[in-house]
């Protein structure tokens, strides 16, 4: 997955998997580029956020733009002003992980004038097993509300359809069909399908004829090893 713009903005309905994909992409980009930054613009979720894997970014030499540690667990919708520096520094690949739905997308709107000239890749992440986005119409409604709140046009899709630990290849293929439907209706490409690494064997055949990125999961429940 090599994005065409140095600025990649992940949007999506609530719980679509933006954070996992953002983290995976940051790690992948860092293998090819010296300077990679990831911005946690999630003003919605109190747990399971990009900032919660700060140690990983530190180790991998990826710049995390997030509220200061002192305030990272405050119940406040903080947007770090550090982000401006990375928007204007074109030596950086910049990944933006926003909160879900139009409410999460609101935090993107304020940067409109800063990144409108940068031709950002605005990705809509779809998990068709989430409520309200299991149909093409439902997903398009979600896209439209996010576009309005973020003042951005969605430019591509990622199919991240899954059922957590119970995902089957059928779920992924059904989600791909819905992504295809959205893609045709809105005339935007599907970048790829993202699949948990645990499912490599079950999905090998399908992955051989479709664009697939296998991802690691970082947002784990406390009882998972």
């Amino acid at each position, binding site marked *: 997955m090599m994005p065409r713009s140095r600025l990649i903005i992940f949007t999506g309905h*609530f*719980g679509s998997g933006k954070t996992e994909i953002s983290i995976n992409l940051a790690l992948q980009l860092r293998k090819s580029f010296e300077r990679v930054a990831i911005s946690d613009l999630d003003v919605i*979720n*109190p*747990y*399971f956020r990009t900032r919660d894997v700060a140690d990983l970014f530190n180790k991998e030499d990826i710049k995390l733009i997030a509220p200061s540690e002192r305030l990272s*667990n405050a*119940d406040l919708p903080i947007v770090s002003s550090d982000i401006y520096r990375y928007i204007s520094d074109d030596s950086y690949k910049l990944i933006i992980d926003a909160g879900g739905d139009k*409410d999460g997308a609101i935090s993107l709107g304020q940067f409109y004038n800063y990144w409108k000239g940068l031709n950002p890749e605005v990705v809509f992440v779809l*998990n068709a*097993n*989430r*409520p309200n986005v*299991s149909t093409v119409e439902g997903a398009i409604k979600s896209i439209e509300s996010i576009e309005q709140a973020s003042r951005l046009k969605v430019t591509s899709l990622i199919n991240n359809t*899954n*059922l*957590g*630990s*119970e995902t089957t290849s059928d779920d992924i293929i059904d989600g791909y069909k819905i992504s295809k439907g959205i893609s045709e209706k809105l005339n935007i490409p599907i970048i790829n399908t993202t699949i948990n690494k645990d499912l490599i064997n079950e999905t090998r055949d399908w992955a051989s004829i479709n664009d697939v990125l296998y991802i690691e999961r970082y947002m784990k*429940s*406390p*009882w*998972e*090893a």
Partner: protein
Amino acid sequence: MAKLLMKGNEVIAEAAVKAGCRYFFGYPITPQNELVTYMAKRLPEVGGVFLQAESEIAAINMVYGAAGTGARVMTSTSSPGYSLKQEGISYLSGAELPAVICNISRGGPGLGNIQPAQSDYFQATRGGGHGDYYLPVFAPASLQEVADLMGDAFDVADKYRTPVLILADGVLGQMMEPVEFSDKVVEELPKKDWATTGTRGDGGPKIITSLDLDIGGLEAHNSRLKDKFENITKNEIRYEEYEIEDAEYILVAYGSVARIAMSAIKLARKAGIKVGLIRPITLWPYPQEPFIKTRDKVKGYMSVEMSAGQMVEDVRLAVNGHAPVSFYGRNGGVIPTHEEIYEKIVQLSGGVKA
């Protein structure tokens, strides 16, 4: 119905709607906001009413009003908000009104923090407000269990005319898991002939109140309530046992901590330590039976909690001196890891045999 991937707070809300809840009065507080947000969108779709009250105190009193009409009604909050609702819950219990309340608990005391905690156990299981009352407390450990329990919570509320509490820590509210909503057959429930829906020349006025100025009258009322609580204790206890048949040591944990404890037990079993788990699903009434049948066989119990030690008191009462009871916990928003719990099991059992 196909499975969906959902967040805990959403599951509580959707399962409540599926159980016939059409009224929700609440006030936002982290980490349960998604529940309020979900209800705001969902209830108008099914002809229900969502109302964001001006405070938790207002919300619980709106619940009192709606419950008085016989409607299925719910409110949700997190720890500090649950404290604010206590007066209203005591009134609901006194006036014998059915309602479901959710506490997606966080670190305390005081404003505490927004991380998960189980330190509202005392408050949840000892009534919480003033007066002689208890309320049934359900403590699910997975999102599928949440989906399955919500209907039962409303049924228990209606059947016994009592407020019911769903107690889940912030992890359960915020995590995502696949769930399937079943079309549960609703139990045949008694008619709500006490509801204040107006009289039609069919009897005297219906009055719902927790006020009783007649001293003997209030005692008689409380004695009826006591019988009701005994009835609930007889009929509604739920728990799960895990690997206890041959266990020499038994962990006791509820909610998300029970799942961490299970991971620790798997590690310990691999190391040859015979350890099992009792997981109370109802925290009040508290399950006595699994303790009574194991307490003369095991070498000890350990209560594992995200608190400074609260449920351990109920474990001691149930074990009643027959075996040693110890405690391990983290609190203030810190979640114990299964490695930590495993280490405690090793210590408890006197070390791993080489």
